């Protein structure tokens, strides 16, 4: 398989890939890096790997990162709550995050190292295609590495330094003695701690973050710092190389003849909601069939604000512009509305203003196209929040887009205040989040408040309108079930009043 900087032997690699061999060996390609399990991802893997394993490792790592982000969202990193929550999600994942879960056999360790390595580099390829994705991956991988390093004991990190291809030097006791006073004062170490503290030296370029903070000793072009800051240095080194490698990989991706195989895989990894669902409208057996008559009720209960807004617009103006027809139409398809129902629903509305044959001529084609019945004949998937926010911003007359991203502060406030269920403080909180560009967080809070959950009670972040819908339905179903059991337990004189409860 091809990784970031392996373009030179591109052809060779490609011919190997065409063979699509099953993975042959489980040996790290290059033992320059730490043979243990911590790595700074300096050497990409160079072995053959089966597509099945490719998918599996990539999805696993993505899930891990996603879980990590969710936990980080609800608790500050390095707190006990965070650790406990995150540890639960790490159970089934073949990557060691907590040192005490480290396997004993060296073979197992090597295998974990390999998966760590491959997973990271696949995601680099998958996320190199837009600056937003690059940033997200770099940030989250950096945080994960920071978390893992902080869990480690000093000896482990220390001993692995020599194996990393990074000019970092631990001061000998003589070197330390020579500049002891400066180190103590510059790095703000307590005098009593000085004796046992290890100090390191790197080129000052690699310690830029510390220099900005000021807690580092600078002498003749080198930065000196105590062990605590080593993590900062290593993480920022890793982030810098990742960022640079992704920028390079992006250029090389264009000449990679992998349209049929690797590229769609990579696109899938980075594009759709990171949970791995692509909401193409295919429903699992046994799920409820959705008809157009249910939409009004569902919209009130379970639609994300963007969809609610477009639905309201459709009912009010009996028309939707192109951007909204696509965004809303694909969403409806994603929740399981059939083609016939979708056309019927739009026709019902549109023909209140235009003749029926005009609708057939001008609008039904597009709906059929989205369902893969026209033109390219590829069923399309619903848009994720990232797509909605980054592409095709709405103009003044449009009603698509993301209300948190594309509404003026005042308008957004008005819209939110219109929801009787939200308290004033909650509206403020959501507006503030939207103001500081945290649209996903704003939407998640909106979800939680409208569903009477605690702040952070959802336990994940909304990154897809269809995810919003599914989570909402899940909660409502659970509550109905709970209500049923409690009702049947206590008395049977009144009908379960699910209506009142779940429309909220």
């Amino acid at each position, binding site marked *: 398989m091809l990784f970031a900087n392996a373009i030179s032997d591109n052809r060779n690699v490609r011919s190997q890939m065409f063979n699509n061999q099953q993975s042959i060996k489980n040996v790290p390609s290059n033992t320059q890096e730490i043979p243990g399990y911590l790595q700074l991802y300096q050497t990409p893997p160079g072995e053959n790997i089966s597509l099945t394993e490719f998918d599996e490792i990539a999805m696993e790592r993505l899930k891990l990162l996603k879980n990590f982000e969710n936990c980080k969202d609800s608790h500050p990193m390095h707190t006990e709550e965070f650790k406990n929550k995150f540890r639960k999600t790490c159970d089934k994942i073949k990557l060691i995050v907590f040192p005490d879960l480290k396997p004993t056999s060296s073979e197992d360790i090597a295998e974990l190292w390999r998966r760590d390595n491959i997973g990271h580099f696949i995601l680099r390829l998958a996320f190199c295609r837009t600056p937003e994705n690059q940033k997200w991956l770099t940030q989250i991988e950096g945080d994960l590495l920071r978390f893992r390093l902080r869990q480690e004991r000093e000896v482990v990190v220390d001993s692995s330094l020599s194996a990393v291809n990074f000019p970092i030097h631990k001061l000998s006791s003589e070197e330390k003695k020579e500049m002891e006073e400066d180190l103590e*004062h510059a790095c703000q170490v307590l005098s009593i701690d000085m004796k046992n503290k290890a100090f390191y030296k790197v080129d000052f370029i690699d310690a*830029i973050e510390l220099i900005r903070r000021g807690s580092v000793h600078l002498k003749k072009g080198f930065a000196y710092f105590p062990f605590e800051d080593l993590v900062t240095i290593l993480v920022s080194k890793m982030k810098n190389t990742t960022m640079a490698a992704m920028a390079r990989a992006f250029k090389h991706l264009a000449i990679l003849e992998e349209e049929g195989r690797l590229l769609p895989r990579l696109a899938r990894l980075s594009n759709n909601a990171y949970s791995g669902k692509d909401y193409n409208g295919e429903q699992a057996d046994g799920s409820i069939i959705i008809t157009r008559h249910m939409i009004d009720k569902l919209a009130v209960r379970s639609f994300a604000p963007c969809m609610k807004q477009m639905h309201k617009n459709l009912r009010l103006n009996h028309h939707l512009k192109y951007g909204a027809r696509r965004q809303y139409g694909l969403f409806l398809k994603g929740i399981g509305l059939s083609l016939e129902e979708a056309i019927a629903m739009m026709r019902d509305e549109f023909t209140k203003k235009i003749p029926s044959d005009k609708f057939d001529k001008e609008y039904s084609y597009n709906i059929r196209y989205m369902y893969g019945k026209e033109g390219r004949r590829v069923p399309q998937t619903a848009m994720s929040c990232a797509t909605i926010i980054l592409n095709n911003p709405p103009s003044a007359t449009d009603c698509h887009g993301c209300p948190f991203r594309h509404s003026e502060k005042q308008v957004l406030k008005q819209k939110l205040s219109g929801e009787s269920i939200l308290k004033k403080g909650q509206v403020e909180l959501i507006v503030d989040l939207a103001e500081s560009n945290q649209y996903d967080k704003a939407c998640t809070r909106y979800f939680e408040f409208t569903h009477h959950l605690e702040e952070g009670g959802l336990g994940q972040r909304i990154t897809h309108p269809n995810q919003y819908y599914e989570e909402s339905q899940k909660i409502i179903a659970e509550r109905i079930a709970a209500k049923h059991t409690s009702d049947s337990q206590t008395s049977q004189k009144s009908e379960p009043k699910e209506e009142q409860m779940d429309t909220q």
Partner: protein
Amino acid sequence: MSYNSIRLPQDLPIYYKNFFPAKPFVKWLRYGLSYGDYFNRREFAFILADDVHIRYRSYHDELSFFKALTSTNPEKLDIGAVYNHEPINNKRHTDYQAVERELVFDIDLTDYDPIRNCCKNATVCQKCWKFMVLAVKILDFQLDDMFGFKARMWVFSGRRGVHCWVGDKKARMLNNTQRSAIATRLNLFKKNGHCEVTEGRAKMTRVPPIVRDAFNVAMKDGIFEKMVLEQGWLENSDFLDYPYLSEGFRKQMLDLLETFKTPEERWHMLRSVFDEGYRRNLTSNDGLQDVMPVMRDRNFLLYFVLQRCYPRLDVNVSTGTNHLLKSPFCIHPKTGNVAVPLNVEKIDEFDVNSCPRIDRVVEELSSLLAEREADENEDSKNRKFLPYKHGALAPYVENFEKFVYLACIS
């Protein structure tokens, strides 16, 4: 004698043709590489009369640069960044962006107005220049001692400030984040305008090396002592404005001020209380004070000195890779002064008011030429005559050439 800018349009062509040191200048910006590897991607900007800016000029060699300079005769010449493509073709590339440039610092006397008592705003006297002297000495020391930068050039901006160019390879390669981190680190002035002499968690007493070293540099040659007297900082008790001075200690100080009336005495008293190095050489006969400041009071003198002489940087100039900065040897249109590279060692000898001025430099030309005619030596007559190597500019060109040498080997 103040400068009359009416003659500037006539003087500029003569100046550029004879006195602009194009050869070392171009040698500097090549950094020991061939023209095609570096120099041709450097942006120059010409600023003509009436503030007409011509940006994105770039040249293939010394001759084409010199021709453009002598045909345009700009009022001001700016040096920009090295780009990934030739700046002249900037419109042709979508990914056109700055990739390298010298690390630069700008220190301007107007930023010292809160503590400068001799002059205000644009006026500059020999007393004010001492602010620049100490700022340059401190920053020059730090750039070498902390970051290991060797190729440093200090240029008088022509009126009331100095620019620093750091030409080391490592400095040129810095990205914007790194530049801003360095500038942030070197800047001790916080938003409230106070100089921070202790930092971080151990705010109370810990003096980081950067502060201690700056203090030592400032106190070394007695320049600061002269300033204390010239600027009259100790004439009343206003100088006790240290934000962390405890009330008890302030009272003690005010009592001492009653005993020590003249600024000289007060300065001696301050040093004998706060400056450990100075204290050590004193006996009780020399006026050793029996006052022991504790906690943050101990840093009072550090604050007093650095608040007054630590370099006040214009951080924004240092941060941007693509920021344009006035070239050395160009003329300040208001004062007519040549922006001359300074010798840091002898910077206190530099006199702002006798800085080479374009009208005087140009006047000198005829006598220089006559001197050469009179020269009996055949050998030197056959060589090309470079007026900038003679006359008033010569010592500054020498400073420049020293820097160019260091820059090329960096």
